[in-house]
């Protein structure tokens, strides 16, 4: 297990390095000069030179990349002060530490993800199990057709509809906002309730469909029939045998979804005006803010890779055939 982890972490590091290099060089390949943007309307050549120096753009691109990379491990010094490792540089736009900005925005994204996760996993898997157990009945038909409709919705459509219905036209709820969890869990939950529910609608539907399909497939497996032939009760067979087998693909998809969501749920954050990692990513690109783009990119990629490793570790836990000997 340890060897497996070491190998996977090393592999992930290489991927991160590649991602950072590609992002960095692509940034310079794309049109748009951050120095010119920072200089403003009445820009003199002298002012432009000073800005270039300040931003570090006077150095060659590989040199800049080297400074960025080494900064992650050793920290860097800037005009506004020392940047401790892991230093992701200073934003071109508002001259703040990128690391601090990301740490500042992360709780929004994490809150959004965790809250949504709890709702859609509970409801989605619950409804999927129920539909599979009652296959062919009205319960199954209701769950299947509802989830088919819901899973074809898009957040940018259903989000504004819900906001319009329960916030702007009726005033039943306040507009979504982020409140610190530690300042009051109730206010935290109340502020994120609408985004959670809307996001969960779609994910619940997807997990319902997936769980139902996997369970129906598993319930027809030979080993499930063997368990019944041994006289094991139907609940026992359903959960210990069929569900155990259905878990593997569900965990896979969940890992991918979680990595993506923590890397920034751009559409959800934009729809509900929440300032999380996804929003930060969009802003950084719009503002041609290289250090911020790099930072957000790396954090997002790290989450995705992390969850990939977690999923593979979970496989080994669920399925003894994958356990490394």
């Amino acid at each position, binding site marked *: 297990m340890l060897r497996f982890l070491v190998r996977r972490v090393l592999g992930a590091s290489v991927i991160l390095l590649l991602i950072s290099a590609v992002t960095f060089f692509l940034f310079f390949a794309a049109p748009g000069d951050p120095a010119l943007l920072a200089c403003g309307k009445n820009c003199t050549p002298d002012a432009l030179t000073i800005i270039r120096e300040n931003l570090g753009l006077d150095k060659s691109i590989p040199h800049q990349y080297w400074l960025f990379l080494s900064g992650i491990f050793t920290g860097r010094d800037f005009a506004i002060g020392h940047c401790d490792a892991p230093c992701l540089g200073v934003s071109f736009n508002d001259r703040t530490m990128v690391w601090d900005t990301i740490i500042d925005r992360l709780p929004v994204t994490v809150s959004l993800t965790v809250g949504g996760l709890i709702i859609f996993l509970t409801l989605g898997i619950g409804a999927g199990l129920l539909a599979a157990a009652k296959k062919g009945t009205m319960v199954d038909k209701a769950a299947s057709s509802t989830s088919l409709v819901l899973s074809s919705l898009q957040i940018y459509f259903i989000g504004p509809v819900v906001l319009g219905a329960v916030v702007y036209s009726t005033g039943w709820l306040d507009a979504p906002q982020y409140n610190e969890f530690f300042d009051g869990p109730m206010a935290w939950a109340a502020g994120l309730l609408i985004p959670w529910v809307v996001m969960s609608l779609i994910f619940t539907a997807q997990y319902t469909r997936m769980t139902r399909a996997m369970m129906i497939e598993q319930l027809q497996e030979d*080993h499930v029939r*063997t368990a019944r032939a041994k006289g094991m009760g139907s609940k026992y067979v359903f959960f210990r045998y069929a569900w155990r087998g259905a878990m593997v693909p569900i965990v896979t998809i969940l890992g991918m979804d979680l990595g993506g969501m923590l890397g920034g749920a751009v559409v959800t954050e934009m729809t509900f005006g929440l300032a999380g990692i996804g929003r930060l990513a969009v802003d950084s690109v719009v503002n041609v803010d290289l250090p911020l783009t790099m930072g957000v990119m790396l954090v997002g990629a790290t989450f995705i890779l992390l969850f990939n490793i977690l999923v593979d570790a979970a496989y080994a836990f669920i399925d003894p055939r994958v356990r490394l000997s």
Partner: protein
Amino acid sequence: MTMTKTADSSAPAEYDGKFLSVNDLRVQFSTEDGIVKAVDGLSFDLERGKTLGIVGESGSGKSVTNLSILGLHNSKTTEVTGEILMEGEDLLTVKEKRLEHLRGNKMAMIFQDPLTALSPFYTIGRQIMEPYRKHTGASKKDARARAIEMLEKVGIPQPNRRVDDYPHQFSGGMRQRAMIAMALVCDPDLIIADEPTTALDVTVQAQILDLLKELQQEFGSAIIFITHDLGVIANMADDIMVMYGGRAVERGSVSQVLYEPDHPYTWGLLSSMPRLSGDVNEELRAIRGTPPSLLNPPPGCAFNPRCDFADQVAGNKCREVRPDLGEGRAAACHLSADQKQTFFVEHIKPRLG
């Protein structure tokens, strides 16, 4: 008499009738294309300590019959009528809870492919312990000891170590042994073996068959042995029932059915077996045609479209009237006893060598 089952209080303590008696069993599935008559009026009896071999092609209703004995058919899409009496108790009318109590306990099944029939997620030991704990209420420790004992009995080396292995760590033959250990852990009175050796190579096959016979002698269980391999059945069974198109077409003792077969379908099965002494270039004789559709079975004798002797019966009887299977040693065929004797001696026997 000795009581082996203590948990079994509701069944009569002493039952002197037939151990297993299946009467006019009919199994139908509703499909989108219509009603499939998978089993159509099947009757047979089985005594303790005896082995009944059921032979037939795929789709002849062998496996369906045995899944309905255990009540493992899908009750939503399947309609089962008739009687399955085990010690006088009709398994088709008892509650699901009672069936759960009987399965794995008084009646157990050995499946064809031990790789898919064992769960990949649990250790062999756990899978053997499960029915034992459920049916006897044994502690985990006792059940584990019992699992090790069973593994040893079925010839798994180092059973106290292998008990913690997963099925994928076992070879095919070992897996089937483990499957047998699992089926026999509660000393069942009835064992249904559904092609238990089909997935195994021939040497392992022989070992598994010997093992089953030994265990049958030890436990005195009744065995229903399903196969399409006549060589295996000759080795294992006391009686044979040949099935075709959801019905029994011939019934008798092993020597009767294998050496004096009375039904053209059985003749075909026997002729299609390669002979060890035969010429290498000798072609294998297949029964012409394909198994009948159970959605829309042929009128009259279900075998008539494939039968070489259908024209020998006066009138159009084979295509119009369904022959009945009599009691005891019997074959469901319109040919007269003399005709059968003549055809068998003239056409079939020379092929069997």
